[in-house]
């Protein structure tokens, strides 16, 4: 049996193959497409290395260990770990060496800047939710703390640490450098503030009593919130500037 002369068998086969090979997007991708109004951006979001299953499991495990340790002692580990975990996730969200097809993606119509910022925002949001859950689980382990302060207080330093990480990763074009800078800066703040807290005798009730008060000071000290926000704003400006569409002449 032969096909009629006016039938283009190649075209027919292509149509058949298109139907057979058609990928059905999952619920997450459909939701992302609706929210972002761009199937390309939604797909790029779902390929984020630090949003893939193994990475999320790793982040959850780290926070769970922190929560367990905190439940068994008065060390405020969750508040201190959450910003660092989020920062590393942000650093490994997008960039050369992280995204295998980064160079190709840069030559595509969907802006690589938009991909970077979308991925960074979603990684931040996911880590904020994970941190919040861990924080709620450990609530009440430290007597005398203000619930709102310790449930959400670490979000402000987390914003600053994540913004710093992203800025360094974008400027240096290295996820490892970004993650290293963010985590190192956070360690310096935590230990520095802890040293200050242990030497200074501050009047008034401390939100976190006992030995953990010093370590928690980087999160609980309201005087640091404004500097954190200032750092976050400056770093966001740096990211905005560095990722601006290039005008051609450098």
């Amino acid at each position, binding site marked *: 049996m032969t096909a009629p002369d006016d039938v283009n068998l190649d075209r027919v086969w292509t149509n058949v193959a298109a139907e057979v090979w058609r990928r059905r997007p999952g619920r997450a991708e459909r939701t992302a497409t609706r929210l972002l109004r761009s199937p390309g951006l939604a797909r790029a979001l779902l*390929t984020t290395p630090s949003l893939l299953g193994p990475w999320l499991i790793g982040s959850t495990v780290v926070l769970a260990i922190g929560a367990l340790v905190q439940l068994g002692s008065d060390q405020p580990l969750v508040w201190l770990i959450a910003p660092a975990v989020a920062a590393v996730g942000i650093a490994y969200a997008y960039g050369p060496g992280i*995204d*295998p*097809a*980064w160079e190709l993606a840069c030559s595509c*119509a969907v802006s690589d800047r938009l991909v970077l910022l979308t991925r960074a925002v979603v990684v931040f949001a996911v880590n904020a939710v994970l941190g919040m859950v861990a924080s709620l689980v450990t609530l009440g382990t430290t007597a005398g703390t203000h619930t709102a302060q310790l449930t959400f207080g670490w979000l402000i330093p987390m914003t600053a640490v994540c913004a710093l990480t992203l800025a360094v990763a974008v400027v240096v074009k290295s996820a490892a450098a970004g993650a290293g800078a963010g985590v190192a800066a956070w360690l310096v703040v935590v230990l520095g503030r802890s040293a200050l807290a242990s030497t200074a005798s501050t009047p008034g009730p401390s939100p976190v009593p006992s030995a953990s008060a010093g370590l928690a000071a980087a999160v609980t000290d309201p005087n640091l919130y404004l500097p954190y926000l200032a750092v976050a704003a400056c770093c966001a400006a740096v990211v905005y500037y560095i990722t601006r569409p290039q005008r051609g*002449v450098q």
Partner: protein
Amino acid sequence: MNIELSEITRRFGRNVAVDGVTLDVGPGVLGLLGPNGAGKTSLLRMLATILPPSSGNLTLLDRDPTKPADRREIRRRLGYLPQHLGYYPSFTVVEFVEYFALLKEVPPHLVPKAVAAAVEKVDLGPKAKAKLRTLSGGMLRRVGIAQAIVNEPQLLLFDEPTAGLDPEQRVAFRALIRDLGQTATVVVSTHLVEDVGAACSEVALMSDGKVVFRGTPEELIARGEAGQGVGDAPLERGYSAILGAARSTS
């Protein structure tokens, strides 16, 4: 003209990768020849709008890539295969090609057919659902070619496209780019002169960041017969004669 370059220069620190190149290219296949380090890849990355020039004017598809809106339009009509194709090992062939169709903003309802057509063109139909990590180097190269042509581009840039392909696949690829060159501008960067002889209607030869020859493959052969070129094939003799002359004058 689909490509108009005027005195394009690209520097990396003190190193001048592309040195004042002026080139107009219309529809057809242009072979970009030259030794390693001649500036072919840098020139191609500028044409792919990934790398901005340090100086000079660049117009692609009658648009100015320094303007974000123009650049987005160019990228919708651009196909690019980099020298080192990054890929997601867990993606299937179809998923990978579809990803780039979406990033190139191919209308979503056209994506399945566009993907099927591109995969069939590179003869990867039997491997359409295979994970990329299971494919050979030559097959991955063909996946790269499929993503480059999935949006039916008007400007196609291939950097060493035949690297890793076996002789049969190379012959098929040459036929494919001859076909694509009927309607689009295809620039093929290679150091394999036989690719140029078989598939290109024009040749540009680069040395030390400069275009030192522009003409047809026949004109390149004629230079070899007239000059002091060495090599087994007429094109190789033309290539070496021009390079030798360029090096002796610089």
